[in-house]
């Protein structure tokens, strides 16, 4: 049966979500500005803010000063300290847990280094639950947790948050979402996503890619993850595994990759490739080791310079391919790729200049993340908030607030 159109109630719920999103992403906004931005009339905005205020999601205040004549328009602020989500970041070398308030404010955070080696799901989940217990102890009595999001360094099935593969964490086939929901025991929905995909969303929402509809975020951990946003939509693929640009083969018969293939982008530009080329593999690992190579190159160490140039060249080739396929407006280098890009930009951009089509690259911007090392964590928070923004009142009702 065909439906005639959305009902009044559906439109109201949609508008509530849109208004809340404006305030969540744009910060405190005056009613007058919301009226302009949403294209609704003043009384509708008033009714919507009244609903959100009653639900405890926003509050209205008089602005400090407007510098203009006339009665000032009330400013709508997100209730950041009251309404929050839990955000987790599971990387190869670190575990992060944070409590993030509506509006994107990090209220509290815990971080621990993760030793490399076998990934034991109960251990990781236990650590995150432990952090959560400590964070919850510090919350006020009227605060409410509306969801949880996880950024995971690996391929995650979108339907149920099941980890399919993660060559760099050395794990495959574990029910991450299920286990974490059980360990947290908060009765809030947990959403799990690939860290690079979430990084792309975070930089688009609050970072260097605001207002960009075509964006690629490359995340260097030990390997390379990718998040591709085209036409404003994250490219998820059929099962949610899309955007694995780290496993794009750039060098046939090249270095072996953790995924079992050879010459993947991450095999040629990942941490191990850089450290081996610099003759430094084995002693130090992680971000510090990558930084040490860039530092040595800067000080004139020829071996380190060559290693960085070689990695930069492969990275440029990978980016050139992506630029030809997706014609992005911006490519963002996050995680350890930030150091590699800034240290080898001459190689990366020379490659893009020679290998990418002029029409595809002419307005391309290459950037590092505005959110720094928190990009993936912020992405996890935004994933959790997505459900709240889709239908604020329903989301509150579900968590019993």
């Amino acid at each position, binding site marked *: 049966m065909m439906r005639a159109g959305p009902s009044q109630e559906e439109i109201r719920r949609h508008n509530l979500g849109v208004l809340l999103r404006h305030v969540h992403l744009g910060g405190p906004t005056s009613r007058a500005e919301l009226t302009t931005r949403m294209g609704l009339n003043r009384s509708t905005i008033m009714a919507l803010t009244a609903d959100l205020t009653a639900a405890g999601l926003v509050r209205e205040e008089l602005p400090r000063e407007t510098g203009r004549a006339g009665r000032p328009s009330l400013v709508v602020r997100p209730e950041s300290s009251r309404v929050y989500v839990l955000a987790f970041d599971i990387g190869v070398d670190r575990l992060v847990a944070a409590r993030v308030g509506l509006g994107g404010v990090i209220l509290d955070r815990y971080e621990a280094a993760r030793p490399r080696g076998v990934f034991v799901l109960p251990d990781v989940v236990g650590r995150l639950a432990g952090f959560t217990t400590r964070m919850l102890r510090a919350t006020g009595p009227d605060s409410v947790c509306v969801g949880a999001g996880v950024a995971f360094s690996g391929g995650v099935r979108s339907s149920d948050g099941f980890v399919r593969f993660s060559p760099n964490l050395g794990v495959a086939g574990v029910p991450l979402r299920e286990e974490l929901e059980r360990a947290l025991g908060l009765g809030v929905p947990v959403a799990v996503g690939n860290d690079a995909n979430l990084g792309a969303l975070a930089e688009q929402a609050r970072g260097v890619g605001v207002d960009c509809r075509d964006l690629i975020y490359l995340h260097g951990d030990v390997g390379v993850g990718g998040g591709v946003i085209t036409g404003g939509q994250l490219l998820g693929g059929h099962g949610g595994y899309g955007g694995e640009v780290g496993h794009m083969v750039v060098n046939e018969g090249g270095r072996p990759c953790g995924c079992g293939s050879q010459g993947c982008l991450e095999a040629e530009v990942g941490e191990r490739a850089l450290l081996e080329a610099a003759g430094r593999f084995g002693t130090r690992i992680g971000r510090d080791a990558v930084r040490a190579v860039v530092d040595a190159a*800067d000080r004139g160490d020829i071996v380190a310079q060559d290693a960085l140039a070689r990695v930069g060249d492969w990275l440029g080739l990978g980016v050139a391919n992506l630029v030809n396929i997706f014609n992005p407006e911006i490519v963002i280098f996050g995680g350890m790729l*930030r*150091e590699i890009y800034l240290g080898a930009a*001459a190689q990366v*951009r*020379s490659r893009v200049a020679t290998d990418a089509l*002029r029409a595809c690259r002419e307005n391309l911007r290459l950037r590092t993340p505005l959110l720094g090392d928190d990009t993936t964590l912020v992405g996890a928070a935004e994933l959790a908030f997505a459900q709240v923004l889709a239908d604020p009142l329903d989301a509150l009702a579900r968590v019993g607030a």
Partner: protein
Amino acid sequence: MSSQPVLEIRGLDKSFGPVQVLHHVDLTAHAGEVTALVGDNGAGKSTLVKCIGGTYTADAGEYVFDGRPVHITSPRDAADLGIEIVYQDLALCDNLDIVQNMFLGREKRSGLVLDEATMEEMAAKTLDGLSVRTVKSIRQLVSSLSGGQRQTVAIAKAVLWNSKVVILDEPTAALGVAQTAQVLELVRRLADNGLAVILISHNLNDVFAVSDRISALYLGRMAAQVKTSDVTHAQVVELITSGRSGELGLQNVNGVTA
């Protein structure tokens, strides 16, 4: 990418006595873009910047700002137009704090006393607008800051005055890798916030990391002004060292003028 440049220099000549340092130099800078000014030692980069900033007066040439021809005869003229230059020595006072440095010589007053609250708020807002997270307190003495933080303060000072063009002379020289990365990101952010930035650098990697255009000076002549996305590292090296690279650059390097 705006079509009309904020700053346009045409045919600038500058001599010191019998020595002609700049020969008919053109340079443009666009809002929202980083223009890298590269060239070997003695190519004339510093002289060009000092002409732009009013420290030197050009012998000949046109100076167009925001589409209007202007005459710059002193650094004050340049500052009034909204052109700020951050020199390598940064010109910060170690014995003053960040706010005092940012407002040095241009302090805000309310009546007879200094308006500390407003200055503090403006300084904080400027640093915040640049997403500077490395500075803990704006009342810290500059003597307690690292090289990268000093550079950050000097840059923030330059953008505090609603400037339109910011010229940075070797901002990453003498910095470690982590601080270089922060300063490069800051340079990029200035342009992304709408300023026209001119970056003088010897480090081609830094140039490629943040610039939109590259202007290469060779022996006092502008060898080429190119979009960074159209050239390779090797081409820029050639422009710097020999004034030309294939089709690019001065076509008769040993002749009188191109």
